[in-house]
């Protein structure tokens, strides 16, 4: 019948054969390199330098120097000018960035093209506007920057996480040392080129690539004033210990196990879309993913039937194809983690279902999955899977929905699906989550603060709150 022919995006991005770090406005000579690959094909894209404590020290020194000598001496309007310039160049290079992100991360081109890159650009435009208005941030006259910000970001939204961190830091007047994730450094390195293109003063943005030890060196450096981390709760705890007793300010955006609560009076067809978007967007590699479906018992069967039918239309495959909905899992390690947790879920009595999908021969893939009949005590109801796996739990009353939704170590996000406004508002008030969506899911806007409770971390990114985290007296 109507089989969509391949619709591949052109390979509009090219990479150097190897990269050094970006320190003081220049790329260093590549050293101690490791491969970065395309997780959809396992093809090697480039060689990346593994940053040592010494590299980090050089980067922090460059950042300190830039902070003291240039960046803190510029007016807000001048800083804003650079941020606007960066945003415009990112817009001009949007397709290249989208392609680069897809190649290095494995997520579908339609997502990088329509979500990751536009959202990243929006973050720069938004915070560019704040740069000359810090007096109006509600923190008194002329609030001061912290100084040097050390930022460590994850692999699930590489460029967007960079934008969430770098844009407010620079707008507030800090300089930064950023460590991208080891599996996805390429868009950060392209961003370094953009900083050069924008003639951003040397040392304002420094990027050191590498593994966990590199990140630890950034976080632990004695001359870093502010630490911002997005990633796993496990690493978040290590960082919290590492900075305890120092003067460093910290924000942590960690894991999640969000409940997407569907009542029997929900707009069903849109709820199906919201649940699908909530867990299968970006292969479920989303900290705020709606990984627990809490569905009212009275509509469970009908809802699951519709959900399965919808999942059968998801197109898994080549992330560069414009019609792909589900791309590759970012790494072999992550794939194994997903498989392990799902196996546990099945062993504990969960009912696993996956649509028939043609799995490509190379690369790392996992077909979208639902595990029905999950009880709150099961592993798949408690642990963050960080993959395209939805655990289905039923409830009977609003009280039970709240109890079950809040019964988690995490508290990042939640979704409520009901056409009854009063019920929605009451539930939103009782849910212990930083972000609550109603009759929608996974909406992000630079003006809106984002962050969690409990083991999902502390501090907020986005909006005025996200700016305050980079100002003295703010966080």
């Amino acid at each position, binding site marked *: *019948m*109507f089989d969509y*022919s391949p619709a591949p995006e052109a390979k509009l991005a090219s990479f150097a054969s190897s990269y050094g770090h970006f320190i003081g406005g220049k790329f260093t000579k590549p050293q101690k390199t490791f491969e970065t690959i395309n997780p959809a094909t396992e093809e090697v894209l480039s060689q990346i330098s593994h940053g040592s404590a010494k590299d980090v020290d050089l980067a922090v020194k460059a950042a300190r120097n830039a902070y003291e000598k240039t960046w803190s001496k510029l007016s807000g309007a001048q800083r804003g000018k650079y941020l606007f310039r960066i945003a415009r160049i990112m817009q001009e290079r949007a397709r290249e960035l989208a392609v680069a992100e897809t190649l290095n991360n494995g997520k579908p081109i339609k997502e990088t093209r329509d979500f990751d890159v536009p959202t990243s650009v929006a973050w720069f435009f938004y915070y560019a506007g704040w740069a000359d208005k810090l007096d109006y941030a509600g923190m008194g006259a002329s609030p001061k920057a912290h100084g040097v910000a050390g930022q460590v970001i994850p692999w699930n939204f590489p460029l967007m996480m960079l934008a969430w961190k770098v844009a407010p830091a620079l707008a507030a007047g800090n300089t930064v040392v950023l460590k991208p994730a080891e599996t996805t450094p390429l868009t950060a390195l392209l961003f370094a080129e953009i900083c050069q293109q924008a003639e951003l003063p040397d040392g304002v943005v420094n990027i050191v690539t590498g593994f966990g030890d590199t990140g630890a060196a950034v976080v632990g450096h004695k001359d870093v004033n502010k630490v911002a981390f997005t990633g796993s709760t496990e690493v978040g705890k290590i960082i919290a210990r590492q900075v305890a007793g120092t003067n460093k300010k910290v924000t942590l955006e960690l894991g999640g196990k969000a409940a997407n609560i569907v009542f029997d009076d*929900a*707009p069903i067809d*849109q709820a199906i879309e919201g649940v699908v978007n909530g867990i299968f967007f970006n292969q479920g590699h989303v900290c705020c993913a709606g990984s627990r479906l809490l569905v009212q018992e009275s509509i469970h069967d009908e809802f699951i039937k519709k959900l399965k039918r919808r999942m059968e239309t998801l197109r898994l495959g080549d992330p560069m194809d414009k*019609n792909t909905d589900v791309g590759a899992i970012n790494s072999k390690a992550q794939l194994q983690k997903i498989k392990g947790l799902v196996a546990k879920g099945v062993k504990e009595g969960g009912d696993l279902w996956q649509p028939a999908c043609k799995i490509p021969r190379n690369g790392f893939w996992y077909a979208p999955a639902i595990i029905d009949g999950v009880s709150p005590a099961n592993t798949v109801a408690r642990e963050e899977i960080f993959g395209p796996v939805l655990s289905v739990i039923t409830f009977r009353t609003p009280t039970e929905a709240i109890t079950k939704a809040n019964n988690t170590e995490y508290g990042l996000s939640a979704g409520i699906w009901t056409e009854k406004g009063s019920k929605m508002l009451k539930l939103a008030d009782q849910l212990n989550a930083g972000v609550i969506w109603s009759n929608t899911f996974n909406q992000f806007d630079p003006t809106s603060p984002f962050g969690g409770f409990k083991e999902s971390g502390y501090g907020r990114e986005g909006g005025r709150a996200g700016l305050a985290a980079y100002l003295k007296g703010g966080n």
Partner: protein
Amino acid sequence: MDAETIVGSRLTNQSLRRWLHSLPGVDKVGLEQRAASLATRSIKTDSKAWALDLIISMMDLTTLEGADTPARVRSLCNKAITPDEDDLDTPSPAAVCVYGDMVQHAKAAIGKRKIYVAAVATAFPSGRASLRVKLQDTKDAVAAGANEIDMVIDRGAFLSGNYLEVFKQIQAIKQACQRPSGKAAHLKVILETGELQTYDNIRRASYLAMLAGADFIKTSTGKVGVNATLPITLLMLQAVRDWYDEYGIQIGVKPAGGIRTSKDAIRYLVTVKETAGDLWLDPDYFRFGASSLLNDVLMQRKKLKTKTYLGSDYVSVD
């Protein structure tokens, strides 16, 4: 299954309202987002060629003007018979769609060929006439040989909550579509979604029409400000899909008005495929009500075959 069994009680305005208002609500933002995401599908090469031919075969090639003449209708029929004189493999549209008084001319022009003649009836487009007039309008078109009747619902009755009146009119027109030979004309029920305004109303009107025996539910007359849109069509496809699941009866969907380009039409096909499924990728269950769409599809078809875009001077006007 008869209407009373489906509704679960004797049919009254109250029971119909209870039934229609128990349908799940439609979230506007979510529905429109889904439609927008379906519209980003990229249909290329072989799948595009396949889709273009299917679009032609699903078309109700339409002329509904006060200025229509027998000659104009004959010309339209000739276009349907031979859409592209340079490529005789081009499929024909499913039907031509005309006013009731033009049915005889259309039938004469089409003869025994497998192209249906559809007639708009029931005081199209406003539907503001007595039931007696609407029935006669329908019977005349059926007697003249119309294979399909496109009726309009009484939007005034619907909006004032008089669901039973709407239901009864559809049922009566369905009766008027019968022929002594037993070969009834197919009934398409036009909801005029632009006048119903809300998505909740459109879902309810779809269910009411299906309950009353519609063979097709159709978006619009093409004569009001807002005609077919992708979100509305998506919503109606969800309705026919759910109806089929529930009662095993497959009902067709016809978006009409405002679909002018191949690109647009392909988005509708994508929506059909990913909402109702392959069963609806069939001219018996999905139609496009359009007039200028055909030539755009023909130009795209030529472009795919010859790799050059020739422009409108190389396809005939109808």
